[in-house]
């Protein structure tokens, strides 16, 4: 089995000179170590190992030579000591690590039961990781290998979104998606996708000729000969879904503890006992690992790490709403020369969105945007649609996907530690799969705790706050009559009132940073990108939180907006 790995590495001209050591344990987990020149090679070797059949996972400890040999964090011991000193701050039946789409979905699903849930996250707001920086697509499910957990979760999750959107009152636009073919080679790919889609169980999947595709989407490029059409693909604003899930979970008794990085997980014998966060210790019987790109590090804390997460960065470009309607649904292209990534689409709010790109990066916090990402996305989109160009761009940003070397989801109870559940490697189509992932975790939890009782007062419904910008004149008038601060517009691009901003700061999950306010209300998300409302938001946040303006941050400690007062 490992011979396969060695011979593949040997065959590769860039890799053959490296001394790589591989071992495999009785759970069939491959451990890689050694030194290479470049991060790309670390990933390539990991990917070769990941393709070996019937392995449980790949732990890739290969290092890059030029990296500093000692990466141990000097401050860590001190932080752990300080956190431990804070003592036990709470008890919970379940601690969920990670307040992104995965963690929030699980929290909401398990809040049906008579269990105390605490969701912890290192960031000062929900959705701060991969969730805030993906394209918001609920994939139809033709893309994942048949039989993979990804494919199962995707197909089931996609279907479940309709009910979710009804219960939780978030925008879901089910307008379908395309993959475009320009020539015979492309059409061959479409046929492969069609076959796989049918095998996976994608409803309504078919190949349309160019004319029929353009009848659905008139701005599709005239060079497009055929297109794969999947009518069930849908679009959401991911952070609004998480907001809805979190609010509903809170209504059903769950708690969110933010800006509380997990520093360690304590076991007693082979059972989870407590979670040490920066804010103190939480005693618990169950830890659910939904930590995204950090899931491997959380698993390491309980000595059950059988996968390494390698971050794959994706860049997205957002356009002005005045270009709404140019392309209402996703258009992809078959991969050529190993190009990956998304294509042009439109968010439910009506902003055209292009991307994401796909680039392997070493640093989990590397959310930079490079020229190559932008060029890749723009060039690809120009092939697909007409009527829009770079001058309409209002924002661009990157996120990192949490990929394992097996490139599949991991949703299972730990085989080694009692009370620990892995929900790891949740990358695309993780958003689409979220409802099904949560349900699978529910099953696992109930298996572990068969005596769990349902809450008698569980309420699956959550109502979103009525937004001024979505209201008719009559409705605006009514809202303003209820609260005059609704008439004070702070963000002119997105028509956001002072009342909406104050509500978000005092909401179920208080928005305490400029970025959090942006995700809750859209203030600062429009074409001027906070140019007009930025200083006003600093003033409102400082007033509502009772802090100095110099303490107001964009995204938590260290990101203060202004540094000092000019006069005493």
């Amino acid at each position, binding site marked *: 089995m490992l011979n396969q790995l060695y011979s593949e590495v040997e065959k590769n001209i860039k890799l053959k000179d490296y001394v790589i050591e591989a071992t495999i344990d009785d759970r069939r987990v491959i451990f890689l170590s050694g030194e290479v020149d470049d991060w790309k090679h670390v990933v390539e070797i990991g990917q070769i190992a990941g393709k070996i059949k019937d392995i449980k996972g790949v732990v890739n400890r290969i290092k890059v030579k030029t990296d500093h040999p000692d990466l141990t964090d000097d401050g860590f011991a001190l932080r752990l000591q300080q956190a431990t000193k804070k003592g036990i701050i709470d008890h919970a039946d379940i601690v969920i690590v990670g307040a992104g789409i995965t963690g929030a979905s699980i929290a909401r699903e398990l809040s049906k039961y008579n269990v105390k849930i605490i969701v912890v996250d290192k960031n000062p707001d929900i959705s701060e990781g991969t969730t805030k920086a993906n394209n918001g697509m609920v994939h139809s499910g033709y893309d994942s290998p048949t039989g993979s957990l990804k494919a199962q979760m995707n197909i089931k999750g996609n279907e479940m979104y309709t009910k979710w959107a009804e219960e939780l009152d978030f925008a879901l636009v089910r307008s379908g998606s395309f993959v475009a073919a320009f020539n015979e080679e492309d059409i061959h790919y479409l046929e492969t996708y069609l076959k796989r889609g049918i095998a996976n169980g994608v409803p309504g999947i078919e190949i349309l000729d160019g004319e029929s595709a353009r009848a659905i989407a008139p701005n599709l490029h005239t060079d497009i000969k055929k297109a794969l059409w999947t009518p069930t693909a849908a679009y959401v604003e991911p952070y609004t879904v998480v907001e809805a899930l979190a609010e509903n979970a809170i209504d059903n008794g769950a708690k969110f503890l933010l800006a509380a990085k997990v520093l360690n997980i304590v076991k007693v014998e082979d059972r989870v006992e407590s979670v040490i966060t920066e804010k103190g210790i939480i005693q618990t019987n169950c830890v659910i690992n939904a930590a995204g790109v950090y899931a491997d590090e959380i698993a390491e804390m309980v000595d059950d790490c059988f996968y390494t997460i390698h971050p794959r960065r994706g860049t997205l470009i957002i356009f002005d709403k*005045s270009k709404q309607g140019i392309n209402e649904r996703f258009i992809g292209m078959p991969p050529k020369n190993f190009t990956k990534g998304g294509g042009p689409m439109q968010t439910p709010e009506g902003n055209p969105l292009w991307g994401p790109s796909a680039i392997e990066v070493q640093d989990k*916090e590397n*959310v*930079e*945007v*490079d*020229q190559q990402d*932008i060029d890749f996305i723009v060039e690809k989109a120009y092939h697909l649609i007409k009527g829009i160009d*770079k*001058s309409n*761009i*209002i*924002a*661009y*940003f990157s996120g990192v996907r949490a990929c394992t070397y097996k490139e599949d989801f991991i949703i299972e109870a730990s085989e080694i530690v009692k009370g620990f559940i892995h929900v790891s490697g949740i990358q695309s189509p993780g958003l689409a799969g979220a409802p099904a992932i949560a349900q699978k975790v529910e099953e696992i939890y109930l298996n572990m705790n068969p005596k769990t009782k349902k809450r008698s007062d569980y309420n699956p419904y959550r109502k979103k706050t009525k937004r001024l910008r979505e209201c008719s*004149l009559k409705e*605006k*008038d009514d809202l*303003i*009559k209820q609260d*005059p*601060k609704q*008439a*004070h*517009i702070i963000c*002119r*691009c997105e*028509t956001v009132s002072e009342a909406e901003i104050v509500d978000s700061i005092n909401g179920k999950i208080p928005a305490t940073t400029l970025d959090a306010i942006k995700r809750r209300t859209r203030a600062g998300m429009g*074409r*001027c*990108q906070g*140019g*007009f409302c*930025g*200083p006003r938001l*600093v*003033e409102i946040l400082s007033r509502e939180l009772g802090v100095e*303006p*110099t303490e107001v*941050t*964009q*995204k*938590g*400690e*260290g*990101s*203060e*907006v*202004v*540094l*000092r*007062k*000019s*006069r005493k």
Partner: protein
Amino acid sequence: MKRLDMDLVIIGGGPAGMAAAKQAVEEGIEKVIILERDSELGGILQQCIHDGFGLFIFNERLTGVQYAQRYIDLIEKIGIFVKLDTMVLEITQDKQVIATNEYDGLIQINAKAIILAMGCREKTRPQVFINGTRPAGVYTAGVVQRYINIEGLIPGEKAVILGSGDIGMIMARRMTFEGIEVKGVYEIMSTVGGLTRNVEQCLRDYDIPLHLSSTVTKIHGNKRVEGVTVAKVDSSLKPIEGTEEFIECDMVVLSVGLIPENELTRNAGIELDNLTKGPVVDENMMTSIPGIFAAGNVVAVFDLVDYVSQTGIRAAKGAAKYLNGSFDLNESYVLINSGDNVSVIVPQKIRISNLENTEDFYLRVKQENRKTRLIAGSENNAHTTRKFSIVKPPEMIHISLKREELIKIAYEDIYFHIRKDVE
């Protein structure tokens, strides 16, 4: 919902709107109202504490704040109706204005005429494509100006300025006064973006380095700006490999241009000029919808506030004539086109029968040139000329043409050229 009937609604109480309001009353328009979204009149002038304003209108060198106060005092003295903290949400083609504020709630105003005077906004980071991260500490020059001059807050200690627009250079000096270290001004073009006097008075006098043909290619830092990469650019404005340099700073100040605030204009269905990004206007500053006028930076970005107020005055005169029915709305327009070395021109069209004795034209050149001559005429036939010793893209050219001159050339579309003087 509160309903009002007005003769003239002026949207925006900055230098264009206030000048228009004062003129409108002088022209005899009775029910005039200014809607202003901020808590006082004056617009962006309220944060412009530097001087150089009012040389033409008041024959004095005033600060922006003083200039605004002159008009505010006049508005108060005349007793013009003003609604502050009031945001206009929508303008319809039949001249209904929907606005909102805390004290009235939603207001619907039926206007007989409207003057758009919403000013302009600053271009932001995505519009100039700087790669890298998205930390706190990247602000437009106008935002920095607001923090320092209005809020009394210092947004950073070490600044790199991208773009040599006027506000950027003025803020370079202002930040230096506040003890902020300005590491340099980087301009991607080979010439300065703002006025020459600002290069002298704001940069040279304070030894702030100006780097032409250079740009910021990347922003570093996850939480707060930690530095930028700058690089020289080639003639096609692409960064030259090997010239990259890391500069440590905690703030990036963008002064990369202004664009008219055109959302209300566009949503009302008014025709826009692709070059100015504002509405197409005629000699009376009237837009493509009869009775809706526009003035100041909402039309095109002017470099002097005096011009902004002048267009406000012109728009008010036009509105008065429109309201008393002395306009010919049927005559076809003569188009005013940008010819050689002219990038933008305002107005973009004229009607001969509605001309005043003299008409003002504002234009910008594409390239700097010395010893030039402005030629206005039909495509091949030049009639009217003016001489300019030097023309530069940042400095708007303002010319007044006599009615008789215009009539002579207006039998077909007019072109404005700026050509080398061959005498």
